[in-house]
């Protein structure tokens, strides 16, 4: 009986599952990318060294206060509650009728941003002080040091943690069904409404979720390997002049 229903659910409703999976992936990809960018920017601001200029120092303190509040609020409340507050709140208080898809991406992004801000901060702290000093010593300011030397290393190091966030996002977009975003969970609920069966549609949904998360994990592992580059390097054979080593020069003298 269950097996028959399982097949029937797939055959009759596969377009709904596919559309739901598409929306889920779309929201989680964009949300993770925007969230990671928010995290990188906040992490960079929070590690700016304190200035001697008291005006700059005061300004930085205010900005840091706001950022800390942001991180605490969005890490400290459930996403399902935030969805309700943001979606219905914006309608009630500001009279903004948000597009549901936009609302979904917005909520996932700022949530991911709050978590990655801390991941990035940890990543920046873990970079050897010598890297900063070497960049400063050749005349780079904080922005250039971050952009060209520190953040590329941070991004490589935090990629596994960002991948984690991505997988969490794929699963957690399911809470967006409370504001009727037509992602996979919402679509599955619709299928149960049509068929009056609960087990089979959700079994299909769980398989789809699993396939998505496993695939994403594999792709990220591949990207990590790509970023590390080849394990060996090619020695450029030089002409006679270039092969001369200081030792050889010293010997000739």
């Amino acid at each position, binding site marked *: 009986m269950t097996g028959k229903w399982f097949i029937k659910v797939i055959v009759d409703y596969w377009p709904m599952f596919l559309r739901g999976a598409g929306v889920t992936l779309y929201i989680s990809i964009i949300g993770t990318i925007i969230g990671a960018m928010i995290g990188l920017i906040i992490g960079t601001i929070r590690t700016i060294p304190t200035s001697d200029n008291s005006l700059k120092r005061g300004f930085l303190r205010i900005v840091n206060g706001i950022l800390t509040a942001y991180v605490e609020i969005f890490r400290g409340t459930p996403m399902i509650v935030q969805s309700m507050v943001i979606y219905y709140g914006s309608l009630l208080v500001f009279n903004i009728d948000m597009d549901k898809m936009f609302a979904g991406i917005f909520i996932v992004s700022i949530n991911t941003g709050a978590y990655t801000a801390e991941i990035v901060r940890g990543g920046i702290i873990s970079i050897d002080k010598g890297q900063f*000093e*070497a960049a400063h*010593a*050749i005349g780079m300011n904080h922005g250039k040091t971050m952009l060209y030397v520190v953040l*590329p290393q941070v991004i490589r190091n935090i990629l596994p943690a960002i991948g984690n966030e991505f997988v969490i996002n794929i699963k957690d977009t399911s809470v967006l069904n409370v504001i009727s975003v037509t992602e996979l969970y919402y679509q599955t609920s619709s299928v149960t409404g049509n068929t009056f069966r609960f087990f089979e549609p959700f079994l299909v949904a769980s398989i789809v979720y699993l396939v998505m998360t496993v695939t994403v994990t594999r792709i990220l592992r591949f990207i990590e390997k790509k970023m590390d580059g080849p394990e060996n*390097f090619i020695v*450029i*054979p*030089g002409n006679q002049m270039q092969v001369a080593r200081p*030792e050889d020069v010293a010997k000739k003298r």
Partner: protein
Amino acid sequence: MDNIIEVRHLSKWFGENEILRDIDFTVKRGEVVCIIGASGSGKSTLLRCINLLEKPSGGEIIYHGKNILDNKHDVYAYRSKLGMVFQQFNLFNNYNVLKNCTIGQMKVLHRSKEEAEEVAMKFLQVVGMDQYINAKPSQLSGGQKQRVAIARAMSMEPDVLMFDEPTSALDPEMVGEVLNVMQGLAKSGLTMLVVTHEMGFASEVADRVVFMDKGVIAEEGTPKEIFNNPKQDRTKEFLRRILRENKAE
């Protein structure tokens, strides 16, 4: 000879501890100055104060006639004119050898990629690392890393090249290759400021040797004066100790 850097009454405090006290010190164009002294005597701190990696607590640093401790002075432009070679190499881990030598030229001096690579190759040849331009820092030995670090600093074509104990983190058999490169640079007329424990290098290459003790310059003079005929008792004591250690090795 004109003064490139003139340090006047420089002092540095770390909390309650006075690390440098009333340092007066000049570097002239084309000069090789070696700073020697026991660990904790403040010689590395002096170097780091000169390029503002540590903020001096008082005094002046005059560079080409201007006090760079003035708030208005562009710290970043100043630093780009002072090369620095670190004890721990500090090559940029995310770039290969060539990019390590070009990134500063491109992003700070705004040179084109082609020009930057040409300059970098010139100095990588000088240090004998031009065959390894594709290697990442993690794939190199300590001596190779330090030679690349020297090429990176030279690629910025600095007024002064400063070395902060460049051979102290190296295995003994690699010290020679780095000292050879440094000796070559000194002969080429480059202005160099070297904090070192290599007394052989200091006596052979330096034009002037500065001995530091407990945060002050205790004695300075030509290598002959310092090594053969030191005036101060603490200089004598330091040299005796160092020579004994070297013999024990």
